[in-house]
Each structure stands twice: as C-alpha cells, then as structure tokens.
C-alpha cells in the first residue's frame, strides 16, 4: 500500500504477538458522589489480524469497553482496576502528546451513526484529507490521497463525494467514508462500534463485505461491537459475550453460537427467531427479569437472578472464568449444564390460523401516494392492491424508501392518498383523512410505532395514556374504564404499580408495552406495527413478539407488520408483500415468499441477511442504492440494480405487471416463474444448504 508511506512506522518495528490485551479491566462511573462499577473484571485479547466481537444487549458495557481502550471515557468515568495494553503500550500511562499520537496512528474507531461523526458544515473531502494532514502530508497531496482512499472503499465517484457535504450522502456512503478515514492511518486496531446498525440490510451486507476485504488488505486487528448476533457471527473469528459489565463467555465465534456454555448466551440465542421459525411453531423463549443496575450485584454470579439453573452457590460464590474447552471460557459454575437451560416461556401455544374464505377486513385498491416536494413528484406508493383477512399478519418488507411506512400511514388516514385510491374497511369505503372518519372507523385501526419515546407523550402518566384511549376509542368512563384499564395493563404483562409512572421512567420494552396497550384499548380490527421491536434488545423483542402473537390469536386482530428484520417478519407473518419504490414486487404467503421462487429483489434482500450459524453464503449482490422515488427508472423500476436483468432490454423498456404466477402468489417480473425457479435452484446447489 502506498497510502500511508508517510506515516512513521519505526515505532512499531517490534510488534508484540497481540494487538490488544485487556486485563481484568474495571471501569467506574462517578454518579452523585458514588462510584458505580460499569465494567467488572473484563479480560480478553485480540491477536494480530484477528477480529474479535463483543456482543450483548444495551447497557452491558460494550461501548464503555471501547471508550476505555481509546481513553475516551467521559469525565466521570475512570479505569479503577486492571489495564489495557495496545501494541505493548499502556495508553493510560501516556502523556497528552503521546496519547494524541497513539490515537492518530495506532487505533481508529468507527461509530454507529456516520451522519453524526462527520462535521455537517465541512465538505467530505476536507475531512478525509485532514487525516493525512495531521500526519504531515501537504494539503493538495492529501486531497489526492483522499480520492484514492475513497476509491478503495468502493465509492464509484470519489470526486463527487469529496465535494459533497455529509447531508448530501446516504448513510451507507457516509459509513464507507468513515471506514476510509479510520483506515487511512493504517491502524493496528480498528474498533467498529455498531457500524451497520443504522443501515439497511442490503447496505449493511455491502459495508460488512467491505470491512472484511479491507481487513485482509490492511492486516488490521478488529474489535467489532454489535448487538446483532448474526453480524458478529459473520464478521468475527472470536467473540466475547457481555452481560451487565462482565464478560460472561468467550471463544471462537462459531463454537460459541453453536454450542453456548453460559446460560445468558443460551437465552439470548433462543430469543432470536431463526431458521424459519413461525409463530404457530411455538413461542420464542425469553430471559426473565431485568438487567441489574451497576453495582447492584456485589457477590455471586451477575446473571444468577435471571437464571433458571442458578442455586445457592451461584448467589454466594462469584464464578471465575472457567476454561470449558481449549480457547473457550465461561463465567458459570454449571457451564456444562448451560445448554439444558429450562425454557423461561412455555413453548406450547395454540394459535388460530386466519380463515381464508372470509370477506377481507381491509381492501386496498389502486392506492397511490405522491408527495410534491419542491416541484418534484415523489411517488412514494404506486397502485397498491391488497386484501387483509381477519386475524392474519401481512408483513411489509423492503429497504428504507420503499414506501412501507407511507403505505401504513395512508391506510390509517395520517397521509391523504392520491385521488382514485380506494380503502375499504369491511366493505365500506373509508374517508382518506382520519379526522373525517367516525369513531367506529378510528377504533378499528390503530398503530404501534417504532419509537416509543416519540409515540408516548412524555408528560402523561401510563394511566392517563391508556385511560384516554379507552375514553375516546372504547367510549368507556368511570368504573368500567378503570376495570378495563387494569385488564389491559395485565394483558400486556404490566402491573398496577406502573400506572402512575411517566414514560421516561420505564425501560424500552415497558414503554412499547404501554404503546401496545393503548393500541388495543379500542379493540381494533387492524393494527399497524411499524418496526415495533427494532429499537429494542433481542430478549425484549422476543417478549414483545410473543405478546403480539398471543393478543392476535385471542382478539383476532389483523396485523400489518413492518420490519427490516426478515427473521422477525417471517416469525409473525402469514402473508408478505415485498415493496420496492412504492410498488408491490412480490406478494404471497410467508412460506412461498421465503422458500421461493423469489422475485429477484426479494432474493437479494434475503441473501443480504447474515445468518447466525456463521456459514458464509454467496450473496446476490445488490449494488447501488435505492433510486429516488422522484425519478423512478423506466421499465421495471428494479432493473437498475437487478442481478437477473434480461439481456434483451425488455426490463429497461416496459414495466411488468403484478400477475398471479401461482395460486395466491403474485409477482412483478418479466422472467417466467419456472425460469426463476430453475435459476435459483441451480444457484442454491452451488453453495452449502443452510438450514
């Protein structure tokens, strides 16, 4: 590489065998005069060119570990014990100047939100070049290097990107820029803190591929932090599972995920719907109880109070890191029994399947929505026809910008559709605007939003929020209302003591339960769930999905379920509509859509999802980004990115119609279904089959 020739490499002539060594690290935050231990006895090491993953739910100390390594702890935090050694040096013992040099050359970090990591008022080129200028390169030369660097992270048009401001670029593009900047100094250690969490699955797959290839090229060690188990499984050689500030299990990624030896890891893996698991196969398992606060557990195993295997010994005796196999450790007295962890949630569940002969609850015909933005016509939803049956779940799938949320808002009457759109509720047409719908119609359709912080009024108590919904939607008041309030609160598995609390006093999962309770207050016929679990941790997500499935089977509610997580969609959905640029590209039962033959777009979406067992799989690459809905491509809107575009130019010139290719299976593609089937079958034969 010529990129970093100007960097002084003499300092790292004699390289120790490990890039990073974290030894018995304790980190304390000082809160109101008390030290609270946020990390306790964390030890791991990362070898040369190794990639190590830290996985765990929010609040477990992943990011604090990264901050401790880079010496970027907030002012009230400090290393209260143990040490961090990077390349044989201890950054905690460095003076200001050498710490600066250390951060500039030895270590780099990429954050979750690239939009916030770049200065919005400085052109991208200037910011990238700055990395070189700090290393002493001349200004114009630095800019030339920046261009070279961007080409290396597979940015097709580096000149344009260099002259853009961050807000003019997409999230995926920005994250590439961030990665480029992080690698510019050829660091020994690259820390990636949830680098793809804010990105679409398709973009995520591209960014992950990029990181893998660059890692080999730069021979960098990687510390990869993520809450997403599958991403870690795909990206990392070894993995450490964190819980409540402790590293509870460590080992080769494949082994840890296939044969976990700590009850927390076991529980966490069971929370994730995978391998085609569906709601009628049984409930997801959950992890009971709550994450302890920092310093709450002084003695004994930190996980004991949530662990079904725990006994007196676990409460009294802090488990050491047991070596359970060569290179594998687990902080559990009973690690050999961990895989037999009893389920926290009984699996057996009888779910009614939706009836098929009934009249649809909702009929959408030719529903379109065009936004007029600065003289441009943005066609967010184009001619959608859909029927929703009672008690079924319709999954809406697609990248961001595909029109999922707009379609849901149009259905609810929060956005007014274009003239000619027809929305019928049980046979009678609905007014386009929710303010013009009567109480019965409002009551029939409700929504659970993605972000409960935004969806719940922060100044209202839980009682107020649910009671108001009961007043307005169910028409209840007084004693009857109070009684129903308690029923509803219990049905979402909350307790009476939560009633006087305000949303900010609740955890994310509890907030989402309040939102669900509110949505169910008027006994709706249709409930739109717009990414209801994507802001939640995996174990909380499992509980919410179980709750939604239970409530649906009991109340025979129809769900419109929007999610970017295909595993979650598959778990809950009976039928699925795949959207691209506002058009339905494929529609069918969940089984058909997932098992194939797929629309080429569906196929690329599916192949972008990393699988938990870490099997590398050949991806159908989806290059580029979703085009602007203001300038949809001619012909088939997907042709610009389609991996299976026909050579005869048909895809570019004429738009295929959505036709029924099999009973109940609609597709919008020029390629005949038989051909798609054989193409996809032969592709699948060329790679190991994934269960």
């Amino acid at each position, binding site marked *: 590489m010529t990129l970093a020739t100007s960097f002084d490499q003499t300092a790292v002539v004699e390289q120790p065998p490990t890039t990073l060594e974290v030894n018995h690290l304790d980190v304390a935050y000082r809160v109101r005069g008390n030290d609270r231990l946020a990390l306790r006895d964390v030890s791991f090491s990362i070898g040369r060119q190794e990639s190590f993953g830290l996985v765990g739910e929010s609040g477990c100390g992943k990011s604090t570990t990264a901050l401790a390594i880079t010496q970027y702890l907030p002012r009230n935090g400090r290393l209260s014990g143990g040490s961090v050694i990077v390349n044989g040096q201890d950054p905690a013992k460095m003076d200001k100047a050498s710490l600066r040099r250390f951060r500039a050359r030895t270590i780099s970090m990429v954050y979750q939100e690239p939009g916030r990591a770049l200065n919005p008022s400085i052109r991208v080129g200037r910011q990238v070049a700055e990395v070189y200028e700090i290393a002493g390169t001349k200004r114009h030369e630095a800019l030339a290097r920046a261009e070279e660097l961007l080409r290396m992270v597979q940015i097709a048009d580096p000149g344009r990107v260099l002259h853009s401001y961050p807000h003019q670029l997409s999230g995926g593009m920005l994250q590439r820029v961030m990665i480029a900047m992080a690698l510019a100094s050829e660091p020994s250690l690259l820390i990636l803190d949830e680098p793809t969490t804010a990105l679409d699955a398709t973009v995520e797959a591209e960014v992950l591929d990029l990181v893998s290839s660059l890692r080999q090229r730069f021979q960098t060690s990687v510390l990869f932090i993520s809450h997403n188990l599958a991403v870690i499984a795909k990206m990392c050689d070894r993995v450490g599972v964190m819980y409540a500030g402790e590293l509870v299990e460590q080992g080769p990624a494949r082994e840890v995920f296939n044969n976990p030896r700590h009850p927390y890891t076991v529980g966490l893996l069971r929370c994730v719907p995978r391998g085609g698991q569906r709601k009628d196969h049984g409930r997801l398992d959950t992890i*009971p109880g709550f994450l302890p606060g920092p310093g709450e557990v002084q003695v004994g195993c930190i996980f004991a109070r949530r662990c079904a295997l725990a006994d007196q010994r676990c409460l009294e005796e802090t488990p050491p890191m047991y070596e359970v196999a060569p290179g594998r450790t687990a902080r559990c007295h009973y690690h050999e029994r961990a895989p037999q962890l009893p389920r926290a949630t009984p699996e057996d569940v009888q779910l009614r399947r939706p009836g098929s002969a009934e009249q649809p609850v909702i009929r959408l015909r030719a529903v379109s929505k065009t936004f007029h933005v600065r003289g441009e016509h943005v066609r967010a939803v184009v001619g959608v026809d859909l029927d929703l049956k009672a008690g079924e779940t319709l999954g809406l799938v697609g990248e961001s910008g595909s029109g999922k949320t707009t379609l849901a808002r149009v259905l609810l009457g929060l956005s007014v559709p274009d003239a000619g759109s027809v929305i019928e509720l049980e046979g009678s047409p609905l007014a386009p605007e929710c303010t013009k719908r009567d109480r019965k119609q409002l009551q029939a359709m409700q929504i659970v939003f993605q972000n409960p912080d935004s969806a719940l009024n922060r100044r209202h108590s839980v009682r107020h929020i649910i009671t108001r919904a009961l007043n307005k939607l169910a028409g209840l008041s007084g004693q009857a209302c109070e009684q129903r309030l308690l029923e509803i609160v219990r049905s979402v598995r909350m307790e009476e003591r939560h009633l006087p609390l305000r949303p900010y006093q609740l955890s994310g999962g509890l907030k989402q339960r309040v939102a669900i309770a509110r949505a169910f207050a008027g006994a709706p016929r249709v409930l739109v769930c717009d990414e209801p679990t994507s802001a939640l941790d995996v174990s909380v997500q499992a509980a919410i999905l179980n709750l939604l499935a239970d409530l649906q089977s009991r109340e025979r509610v129809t769900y419109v379920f929007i999610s970017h997580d295909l595993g979650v969609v598959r778990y809950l959905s009976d039928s699925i509509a795949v959207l691209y640029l506002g058009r339905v590209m494929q529609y069918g039962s969940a089984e058909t859509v997932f098992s194939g033959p797929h629309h080429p777009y569906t196929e690329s979406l599916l192949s972008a999802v990393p699988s938990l067992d870490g099997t590398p799989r050949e991806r159908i690459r989806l290059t580029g980004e979703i085009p602007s809905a203001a300038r949809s491509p001619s012909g088939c809107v997907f042709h610009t990115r389609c991996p299976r575009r026909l050579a005869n130019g048909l895809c570019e010139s004429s738009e295929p119609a959505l036709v029924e290719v099999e009973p109940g299976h609609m597709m919008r593609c020029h390629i005949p279904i038989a051909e798609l089937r054989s193409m996809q079958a032969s592709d699948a034969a060329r790679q190991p089959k994934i269960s």
Partner: protein
Amino acid sequence: MTAGTDPRVPPVAAGDAGGAEGSPAGAAGALDVSVKQVRREQLHQLVRSKPFLVGALILLWWIVCAIFGTSFAPYSATAANIVSTQLAPSAAHWFGTNDVGEDVLSRVIVGARDILEIAPLATLFGTVVGTTIGLAQGYLRGAFDMIVGRIVDAALSLPTVIVAFLFVVAVGPSTFTLIMVIGFVFSLIIARTVRTAVLGERDLDYIAAARLRGESVLHVMFVEILPNVLGPIIVEFTVRLGYAIFTIATLSFLGFGVQLPTPDWGADIAVNSNYLAAGYWWETLFPALAIASLVIAINLIGDSIEAVLVQ
C-alpha cells in the same frame, strides 16, 4: 454552568420484563426516579444556586415594599414639603429629598407597587395569549401560520416601546391599558418562541396517535403539546417580565405610564433628571438603581430556572 453536579450519567439502561410470566414481582422494571423526585431535585438545585438566591432576595424585598411599603416607609411618599426641597442624603433623609420636598427613599419604596402590579399581569396576559397563538401557529401551520407570522414580523420590526407608546397615546394611559398594550406586544414575541417549540413536537408520533383517537384540535394543542413546551414558556415568561419592567419604566419616563404624584420610578427619573445638571444626583440615581436591581433580580432568577430546566 451550575457547579457541583455532573450531568453525565453512564450509559446504563434499565432492563425489561423479558420473560413476562416468570418475572419476579419485585423486580425493578422502572427506573427508580419518580416525577416528584425529579421536581424535588430540580428545586434543590435551584435553591443551591447563588444567582437564584440573590435574585430571589432582591425580588422579595421589592415585593415586600410593594405590599407593605406605605406602612414602613419613613415618610409619606406624597408629602410635599416646601421647606425641605432638594436636600442631599442625610441621616434624616437617607436618599435625600426631591424638588417638592418628598422623601426619595419613601418614594422608591412605595414606587415598587405599580410596577410590580402591572409588569407581572402584563407578562402573564402576554404569555397566555402568546402561547395560544404559538400553539395554533405551530400545530395548524398553513395559511393561519403564514398570516399570523407576517403580522408578528410587522409588529416586531418596531421597538416594543414605540408600539406601546402609540397605543397609549391613542387610548390614554391607565393601568389597564398598560397591561393590555404590553401584554399584546409581548404575546407576539412569545408566540414566535412557542411556535418554534411546537414545530419540534408536531411530527412526533404521539400527535399522530392522538389524531387516530379522534382528539379535537384544542385537545391536541393544550393537553398533548402544551405540557411538552412548558419549559421554554416558563423561561420566556421570566425574560419578558424583566423587559416588561423596563418598558413600563420607560413609558412612565416618557409620561405615559403611572401619573404623578403617585410615586413611580420611571416618572421620578423623568422629573428629577432636569436637576441632574444642577448636582442633585440622588433624586435620579436611587429610582434608577431600583429599576436596575429589579430587572437584574428577575434575570438572575430566569437564568437559574433555565439552567435547571435545560438539564
């Protein structure tokens, strides 16, 4: 910055009822901070801050003067005395006497009354009207926002005092007019602040949820949005209160406020400033200091409240 407390708290979130059925009843599902506790903590913080204490003490002094001033002022504030005019400060007359022999100290003490009556009422009136306009502008948007916005722009392009002055000239000075006029001008300024705050709220999902419940526009504005924009409104109120005192004093100075011989700081400065050149400085200085101290006190209080609320 307020000293003493570090606002940074480690990124530790509370857990959640994972296994719903199996969760022990006593587990801490909620963060252990109640609303009352937060309020109490904010109050503590306020009481601990020195600027707030100083401001509150000064304000309290002037309130006491306004209510009980007549009973403890050393002389009657309106007792003219031809023998003892323009006396310099002395043991008998701490702040001296003015051109008609009235005791300056007594006039300063009693003079707090009108200003402390008009200013809060005017500000309150302005805040209520302004909040309503701002809520409607921010939530309804569209033509209403456009039209009201332009009117606000037009009114605010002139200095507050000039606008108030024109009104008072047209209607004639009285306590009621002053309250209405100052309140009206302030309401436009406050409306602008509230509108901005509402714009940050209106696209949040709880508003959509309220619309899906079939809530009326008034309910959404006053029950859903208002509590969430109360912070900036409170801050705006304290800031405007300071300005109101200034405006009233200015109008009095120009002769359109409280009418003589009723003791009033602004009017006293106006009358006695004629004698400044002759060396009778005390007649002007003390009422001026009174105005300054009151405005400063209110700003100190306002800043402290803002500092606490912003956290």
